[in-house]
């Protein structure tokens, strides 16, 4: 079973729904160790993405086209740290998916490209209490699943689960990147909002594939 353009569109719509549904939760997480705008920013961005999808005259031919639309729209509507980071993630993912269908290896390539984009932009490593702490295990889990013979959908499921665990694992961390780093020790004990939104978006990807 491979994933097609319809999957990509469904992923994006489900992401938008998840972000809208968890808007206040993300705001609250960011309020605690940041500036309280993460849910608002992503919601604004994904709302714009859906509007653009809706306005398309004909469906895109390749998965990468969908992801590129996401990338440029997030980049131009989200702002803050998350805008360029997610924007770059989707841009790199788009480049890695200039195909009409994705198999399990394609899913791994997508996730690795996205993570690479975030790291190139944000220069954070794991353990710094950022979205990297969700994307890294997600990408690794998908690769491991794929190596073990999992389907594309199963690889995404593994990635989503790993992102969720990675997000939870940010709680005890002291932030050294992003806005939470200004709090020093006081940042410990809180879930990183960007890791949480990563979890939501990868969950949406898995659900769209299920």
């Amino acid at each position, binding site marked *: 079973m491979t994933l097609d353009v319809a999957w990509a569109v469904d992923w994006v719509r489900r992401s938008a729904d998840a972000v809208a549904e968890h808007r206040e939760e993300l*705001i609250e997480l960011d*309020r*605690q*160790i*940041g*500036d*309280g*705008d993460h849910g*608002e*920013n992503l919601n*604004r961005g994904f709302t714009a993405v859906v509007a653009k999808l809706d306005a398309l005259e004909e469906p895109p031919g390749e998965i990468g086209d969908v992801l590129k639309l996401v990338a440029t729209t997030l*980049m*131009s*509507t*989200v*702002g*803050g*740290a*998350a*805008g*360029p*980071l997610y*924007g770059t993630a989707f841009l790199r993912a788009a480049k890695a998916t200039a195909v009409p269908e994705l198999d399990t290896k394609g899913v791994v390539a997508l996730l690795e490209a996205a993570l690479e984009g975030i790291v190139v*932009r*944000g220069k954070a490593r794991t353990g710094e209490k950022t979205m990297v702490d969700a994307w890294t295990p997600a990408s690794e889990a998908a690769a491991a699943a794929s190596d073990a013979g999992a389907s594309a959908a199963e690889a995404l499921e593994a990635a989503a689960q790993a992102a969720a665990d990675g997000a939870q694992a940010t709680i005890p961390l002291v932030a*050294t*990147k*992003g*806005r939470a*780093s*200004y*709090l*020093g020790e*006081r940042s410990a004990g809180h879930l990183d909002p960007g890791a949480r939104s990563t979890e939501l978006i990868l969950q949406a990807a898995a659900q769209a594939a299920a």
Partner: protein
Amino acid sequence: MTSVKKLINDPQNVVAESLEGFAAAHADVVAVHTDPPFVTRAGGTTAGKVGLVSGGGSGHEPLHAGFVGVGMLDAAVPGAVFTSPTPDQIAPALQAADGGKGVLAIVKNYTGDVLNFETAAELADAEGVTVRSVVVNDDVAVEDSLYTAGRRGVAGTVAVEKIAGAAAERGDDLDAVVAVAEKVIANVRSMGVALTACTVPHAGKPSFDLPEDEIEIGIGIHGEPGRRRIPLAGADEITEMLLTPVADDLGLTGGEKVLLFVNGMGGTPASELYVVYRRARALLAERGVEVIRSLVGNYVTSLEMQGASVTVLRLDDELTALWDAPVHTTALRW
């Protein structure tokens, strides 16, 4: 929608409606562009002058749009409240500010601001605009380190914009304006305190919960909690907690001449800022540091937050002359 006690309509429209009022009130000084939103001087670009652009999240007014005008910025880019603007807003502002001599982008050191300006600079570069950037990081509340996001840019930004603006206005080329801006950045430090939190319109509740008898020391300008929470203290004591790390970090040991800037976070009455100024100045005098220029007021704010920050800029003759140079913006004018 959560309703918050503010003089606003739909929280989604605060920035746009506020800019609309700003444009109407100050058509002699600024021109406000919409879609994407950015602010330029009323007269447009000055040909043959290095352009100066700054920007960042809204909610810090008068920063940055209030500093657009002769002798200071050429353009300002307001993002959503406390959210860096996007590259597709910043890039046209960079282009608009280009008078053929290149543009200096003054960026406060936040991941979002840095990344969005970076992307915008690439876009503008593709349109043939030479863009250089400086990153303001004056907040000593945050440890500076190669391995972290580094210090934040806060109230010291005003000094960078004023002084670099004067350098551009007198005809310095891009390299020289960058050098002046870097010199200010190297010599300016700040630290702030919050007595109350602020409420971001779309969030609908205070950015942190602070008991009546506690304050936050080492806050930034985005309503984030500070480095530590302490019991409420007298103004003199609090001022010392702000001034000492600033002066120490600058290595002021006596004999220096400085600008002392006491900045309100938006909801602090002027009378209290002068109480703080008085004490900060006395503490500098005790160190043998001479205050030769002063600024007191709400210039780099966090919405309606009550609190203040203390900024010290070490001056030399050049910086002093550039600080004194004429400026005509809506928030600073002499």
